């Protein structure tokens, strides 16, 4: 298992480098010029100097190397400095956003809490709803509960999140006035009323994403339970005189959770991607909205860094899913 993990970790390095290269070369084609909004009165030679100051003078492979160096060496140094008060970075050049002229990672650090709160909470809620629904649907296959669950999950992954979000806003914030339609990031939670307010503004985005995630996970849970319910060991357990509760919740559930856990791990990066749309609907200023703004504003370093972070998430969670599968299922050994 350990050798497998190490081998996969080593293999992940060229994968990530390749992905970084693809994104970088794609952005290289960008028609936008970060100097376009500068006043025309600036003489051309000064403009040339400013371009060089932004690091645009060199050929692409030099800039690609510099970006990699900044992403993997300089930024972690600043991060460690911030944590322990050391001075590893020593004033080295950080990745600078074209739009705000401030370090990209500072902006990202400001945005991450909102995304994690809304997206992370919705994923947790989605999983918590999905597992019991999947279990009951499988145990009572073709009952009204199962049919209803199938229908709801079909609706859940057919209706796009931007429509569910808009629909909820129309119903619950326009007509009923229960929840605010815009997420207020400046809200500080320090007493009970502000906590209730925070819950209220999180309710709708969390529900939208949770419905979408629960739809998919409950299907997997149901299929996996059904696979296991037909196995011989279930018949043996029943023949030994165990109650149905023990058979289902102890024997079948544990075995069925193995593939579901990996599916849950694989879904995490997709949730971050899908959150781009939900954040746009509810005006949550998280990572997804940051990416959209950066794309519209031709902010190449920001887009590059954010997209690469999404890619890192995908690669890391793929790895976690594969390793979890091996850890949970003793029949699977990769060595």
């Amino acid at each position, binding site marked *: 298992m350990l050798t497998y993990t190490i081998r996969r970790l080593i293999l992940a390095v060229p994968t990530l480098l390749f992905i970084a290269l693809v*994104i970088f070369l*794609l952005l290289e084609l960008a*028609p936008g010029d970060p100097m376009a909004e500068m006043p025309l009165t600036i003489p051309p030679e000064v403009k040339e100097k400013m371009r060089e100051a932004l690091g645009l003078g060199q050929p692409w492979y030099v800039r690609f190397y510099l970006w990699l160096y900044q992403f993997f060496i300089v930024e972690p140094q600043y991060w460690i400095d911030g944590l322990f008060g050391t001075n590893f970075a020593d004033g080295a050049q950080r990745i600078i956003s074209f739009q705000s002229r401030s370090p990209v990672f500072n902006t990202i650090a400001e945005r991450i809490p909102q995304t994690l709160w809304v997206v992370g909470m919705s994923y947790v809620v989605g999983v918590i709803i999905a597992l019991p629904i999947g279990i009951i649907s499988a145990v009572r296959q073709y009952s009204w509960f199962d049919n209803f669950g199938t229908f709801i999950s079909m609706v859940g992954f*057919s209706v*796009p999140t931007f429509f569910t979000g808009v629909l909820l806003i*129309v119903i619950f914030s326009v007509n009923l006035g229960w929840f605010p339609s815009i997420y207020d990031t400046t809200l500080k939670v320090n007493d009970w009323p502000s906590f209730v307010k925070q819950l209220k503004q999180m309710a709708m985005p969390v529900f939208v994403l949770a419905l979408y995630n629960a739809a998919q996970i409950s299907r997997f849970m149901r299929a996996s339970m059904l696979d296991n319910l037909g196995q011989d060991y279930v018949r043996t357990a029943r023949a030994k005189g165990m109650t149905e509760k023990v058979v289902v919740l102890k024997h079948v559930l544990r075995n069925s959770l193995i593939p579901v856990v990996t599916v849950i791990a694989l879904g995490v990066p997709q949730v971050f*991607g899908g959150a781009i*749309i939900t954040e746009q609907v509810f005006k949550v200023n998280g990572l997804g909205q940051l990416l959209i703004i950066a794309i519209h504003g*031709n902010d190449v370093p920001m887009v590059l860094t954010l997209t690469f972070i999404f*890619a890192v998430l995908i690669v890391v969670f793929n790895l976690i899913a594969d390793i979890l599968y091996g850890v949970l299922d003793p029949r699977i050994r990769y060595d």
Partner: protein
Amino acid sequence: MTETTQTQSTIPVRNQWWDVWDQFKTHRGAVIGGAFLIFITLFVLLGPYLWQVDAQKLDIRNKDLRPFYIGLFSDVKWSWSRPLGTDHLGRDIMANLIQGGQISMAVGWTAMILSLFLGTLIGVLAGFFKRLDGILMRFTDLVLSLPLLPILLVMMLLFRDPLRAAFGPETGIFILIVSGIGITSWMHTARIVRGDILAIKEREFVLAARSIGTPPRRMITRHLLPNVMSPIMVSATLGLASAIITESALSFLGLGFPSDFPTWGKILFDSVDRMAAFPERVIWPGLCISLTVLSVNYIGDGLRDALDPRIRGL
């Protein structure tokens, strides 16, 4: 010899697709989904002939009309000549839904066919030719680990202007969106097709075909492809559904078609700002997208059962 020919002729000739159809009919959701898909396709195709209102015509005097079902019960500005109301520039919403539906469906179908073609091509090549297998599957894994939505958004931004200049505003964006969705969604089809080809390749009929000297090209088109039709058809339905959703998501994020060129997603996006006053402008295009995708998903569900010989005939 004569006996066998006689018995054969008494059995009615029955294509296997009739069996599939019989099984498909027993899935109620799939039949309703199929009926709705036919209805919405006819609606967007024949709509312009039945509802001859120009979708782009500005009619400021009749702006912000409400739909008839609100107008009948409360005192608002409405008119029978604009049954679903008009937008803030007086454009007819019904006509816009029809025109937008044409584009959304066209994008969905074309992108699905493109991604199916790419997926099948790569899957067959990887499954059939051992030398290509490793490299093609590594490539598929790499593409799968790309963050697809952000990359699609970046592609939209980068290639919008060059393609617009080359093919005109409408065709250019159409080509861009279709190829963007196509080349970011072929991976699952490729994996499924490769797996099935690998399994079928070891069967006796393939050995028999090879032993009479069938060339690889004929082998693929005549023996392998017909046998992987079922998974390809199921992933076609999934592909159509996700292509329609991706297109409307791009339009919703403001990186799809230009606004004088409506699609369902675009109409929805344009109406979000005033949805408190005019919720119907958001709900109708949203319903169109959701119901179309829902019906396509149900058809896919029914097809999966119908094409599985272990379930069929029970």
